[in-house]
Structures are given as C-alpha cells and as structure tokens.
C-alpha cells in the first residue's frame, strides 16, 4: 500500500512541477514576444510617420492628435518631389557612381583577399597587419591630402575621385573576404594545382564561385555606402548636373524647410530602393554575415 501511494504521489508531483515549468516557459515566451512587438512598433513608427506625412497636404500636417491615415490622401507630394529637383538626372548620376564602385570594389577586393588568404609568401602577414591598421585611420586625417592629390590630377569637379579609387580596394572588404576564403578547404586549391591550374585560374574557377555570399555582402555594403554617401559628392562634385541624390535632397531640404509633405516624399524615394534591395537579398546578406569573419 505504502509503495503504491508513493508511486502515486511521485508522478503527481512531477507533473505539477512540469506544469509549473511549462507555465513559466509560456510566461517567458509571452514576455519575449511582447517586448519584441512593442520595440518593433516603436522602431517602425518613424517609417510609418514618414510614409504618412508624405501623403499629406500642408493643412493636414499640423493636426492634433496626429492623423496616421491622411484623409484625403495627397498623392501630389510625389510629383512635386520629382520635379522640385531633377530627380531622374540625380538618380542616374547616383547609379553610375554606385555601380562603378560595386564592380570595381568586387574586382580589387576579391583579388587582394586571394593574395592574403590563399597564397603563402613572405611578408604577407606583416602586410595584413598593415591592412588592419589602416582600418583605424579616421577619414578626416587623410581627407585634405587626398583632395590635393585629386586637385593635382585635375579631377575636382568630376566624378573620378568618387569612382576610380575603388579599383585600389577597401581594407574592410578585403579583410571580410579573406576571412571567408580561409574557410574554403586548401585541398581544392591543391587538387587544381596538380591539374596544372594557375593561381588566377584557381581564383576565378574555384574561389570566386564558392564565395558568392561573401561577395554579395561586399556588393550590398558598397551599394549602400555609395547610395548614401554625402560627404564625398559634396567635396568633389562641382556642377549641379553631376549631383547625386543625397546632395540633391540636401539642397531640397535647405530650400524647402517647411514643405514637409514633398520632403518626406523625397526621403521615401531615396529610402525605397535600399529597402527593396535588402528584401530581395536579405537571405544572402544574412548568410554572408553569418559565414564571414564579420561576427568575430
């Protein structure tokens, strides 16, 4: 009897413990989701407000309490933003600089990273330390002498200072690609070498195809950096005809300080391509971050 009673008690107690644990587990889940939803809403509000404002006529802007869904919807802000600045010309300029940089950066960085990761040669590690060291140099230190170099080349007032330097690589992207290349098994290179492949062939036929996620990260970062760049075009571009979107929008912002509707419409037009690009590439992008040394 005694035996059976203890046997009866144990499962009962453990099931209540389990129930308690399960309850705790569920409570914790709810708290986690609650925190995420609240924080997510908080961080989305600026975007929603941006979109909402971009569809408001001037008299709708200052209503209290704030109106989230404009009534009526003022679509006119978008045409106004497109015509207040030569939007498509600036877009074209921005795309030229951006794509030039993406292509040139991919070529130069993928090559340099190969030299650092896949070939062993004396001085390689010392140079790699130098490369890491250059990451710590603030742009403001080299800004003025760089300007003087470009001035002596006669490049001020052209897009050249914003494009051609990309062929000389970027320390951070070289570092990132090197970390990725290091994860590719050496046996692949060794096998190719036995088959008589040159380093350039190994780079082109083996390493590059296997590095797509990392290359995608570099391409995406380069795209964003150039699309968003404000200081570079501000320093080097002279002619209004050469302006990029960032500069054009800045001009619009300082001219039309109170035209919030068209301003927000213009900001939407600048943000939208970046968001669309991220949506289509996010899987590769996240994979690239996960697989490269970026996470340390």
């Amino acid at each position: 009897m005694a035996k059976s009673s203890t046997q009866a008690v144990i499962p009962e107690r453990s099931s209540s413990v389990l129930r308690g644990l399960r309850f705790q587990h569920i409570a914790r889940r709810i708290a986690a989701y609650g925190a995420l939803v609240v924080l997510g809403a908080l961080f989305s509000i600026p975007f929603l407000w941006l979109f909402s404002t971009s569809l408001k006529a001037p008299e709708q802007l200052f209503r209290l309490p704030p109106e989230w869904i404009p009534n009526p919807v003022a679509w006119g802000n978008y045409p106004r933003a497109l015509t207040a600045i030569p939007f498509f010309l600036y877009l074209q300029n921005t795309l030229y600089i951006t794509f030039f940089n993406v292509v040139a950066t991919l070529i130069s960085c993928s090559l340099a990273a190969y030299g650092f990761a896949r070939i062993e040669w004396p001085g390689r590690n010392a140079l790699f330390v130098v490369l890491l060291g250059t990451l710590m140099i603030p742009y403001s230190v080299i800004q003025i002498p760089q300007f003087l170099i470009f001035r002596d080349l006669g490049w001020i007032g052209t897009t050249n200072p914003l494009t051609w330097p990309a062929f000389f690589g970027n320390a951070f992207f070289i570092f990132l690609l090197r970390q990725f290349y290091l994860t590719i098994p050496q046996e692949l290179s060794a096998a190719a070498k036995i088959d008589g492949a040159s380093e350039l062939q190994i780079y082109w036929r083996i390493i590059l195809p296997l590095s797509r996620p990392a290359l995608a990260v570099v391409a995406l970062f380069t795209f964003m950096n150039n699309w968003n760049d404000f200081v570079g075009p501000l320093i080097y571009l002279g002619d209004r005809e050469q302006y990029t979107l960032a500069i054009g929008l800045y001009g619009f912002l300082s001219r039309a300080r109170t035209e919030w509707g068209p301003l927000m419409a213009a900001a939407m037009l600048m943000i939208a391509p970046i968001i669309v690009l991220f949506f289509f590439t996010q899987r590769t992008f996240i994979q690239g971050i996960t697989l490269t040394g970026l996470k340390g």
Partner: protein
Amino acid sequence: MASTATRMRAPQRPNPALTRRTINGLLFVAPWLIGLCVFTLYPVLASFYYSFTEYDIISPPTFTGLDNYQTLLTSDPLFWQAVSNTLFYAMLAIPLNLLIGLGVALLLNTKVRGLAFFRTVFFLPSIVPDIAAAMLWSWLLNPQFGLVNALLKLLQLPTVGWLSDPAWAKPSLVLIGLWGFGGSMVILLAALQDVPQHLYESADIDGANSWHKTWHVTLPMITPTIFLTWYSALSLHFNTLPPPLSSQAGRAGRQVRH
C-alpha cells in the same frame, strides 16, 4: 614541377617556388598596395607634415613648428569641447547602442517565430541614408509640430526643443543613433546563433538556469564580437557625423561638433 622539386634540394640557391609564390602574392595584392601608398600612407604623412605648417592649400606651406598644437591645446575653444563630445559618444551612445542590440539579439535568439520579420524590422533603420534620416528626424523632432512632441503633449508631459535646443541637441543625436542599432544587432545575432549547442546542453546537466547560461556561456562566447562591433561603431562614428543633422541643429551646432 619536376625541375622545381630537384632544385628545392639546394637551399643555397633562390627557391623558385617561393619566388613564384611571392611574385603571385604581390601581384594579387598590388592594386591594394598601390592604393595604400597613394591614398592612405602618403596622405597620413602629408597630414602629419602639414600639422607643423601654416597652410591654406593655395599658397605653399610654411613651417611653424608646434604652433598649431599649441593653439589647439590652449586657445582653441572648440577643441576640448570636441574631445568631450567624442568621449560622450564613445563612452555613452555607442555602448547604449550595443546594449540594446545585444538585448534584442538575445530575445531573437530564443527561437521566436517570425525571426526574419523582426530582424528586418530592427535592421531597416540602420540602412536608411543619412540624408533621409536627417529629413525624417528633423520632422519627427520638430519643436512645434513634430510627432515626438505631439505624443509628449498627449501624455501631458513637458515638450522639448530637441535639435534646436543646445541642451537637447546631443541627447537628440543619441536618440537618432539608437534608431540605427540594427547594424550591430544583426552581427551579434549571427554570433549568438553560432554558439555551439552542446555548451548549453552541458550547462543544463549542471543545473544552470537561463540567466546562468546567458552569463557564463553566451556572453563569454560572443565577447570578441561585442568588441568588434564596438570598435567598428567607434571608427564609423568618428568618420561620419551626418552633417545635415549638425547643421539642422543650428545654433546647437557648436556643441555637437567633433
């Protein structure tokens, strides 16, 4: 190949395989190496030299010794202000950013549903172009008609001048910076997902609760990443303070200059 192997036995002579590897290696890094000399090393040295001269870019520099440093350290009113602002960001704003990034990454790492959705929501602000962010925030923080002050009013709280008030300009910039915490979050989340599962299993066997696991397993495992993100945020921050924002700040501009 065969000739290489036979010649390798004579160590006195130059090793052709090694020479070839060196040439190949140098060729691959050559574009970067040239860029390093022309666009980085030379400018750094030139800046260093110019720092001892009086130079207005148009007429040639004249040597003045340590004059510039003396002016900077003793009579330039902006220098110490700039140093203190920089320290303020480095010691307060960036760690705050990382802390929130880490907190949200830890939340997302508890195997929540809709991970991709939440990750996107938190990451998006960090890729918004500076100029667009400046436009957006100067509207949100508009003293009279901005949403932030409207909400404060709705809650019967006192409103603030934000970017137009010197005392609030810096906190405003910290707030705007916080909005972009997603960049470090994505990297921290990637690091969290890489912590080997068996470490947690052995912690379970030892009877660790989730706090113990976070403190003794997760954090030590991702410490290098925390430092990396801190460092990259720092170097990024020193390089780019969105200029539109500082000019938006108007008369508060002096207080936020770096």
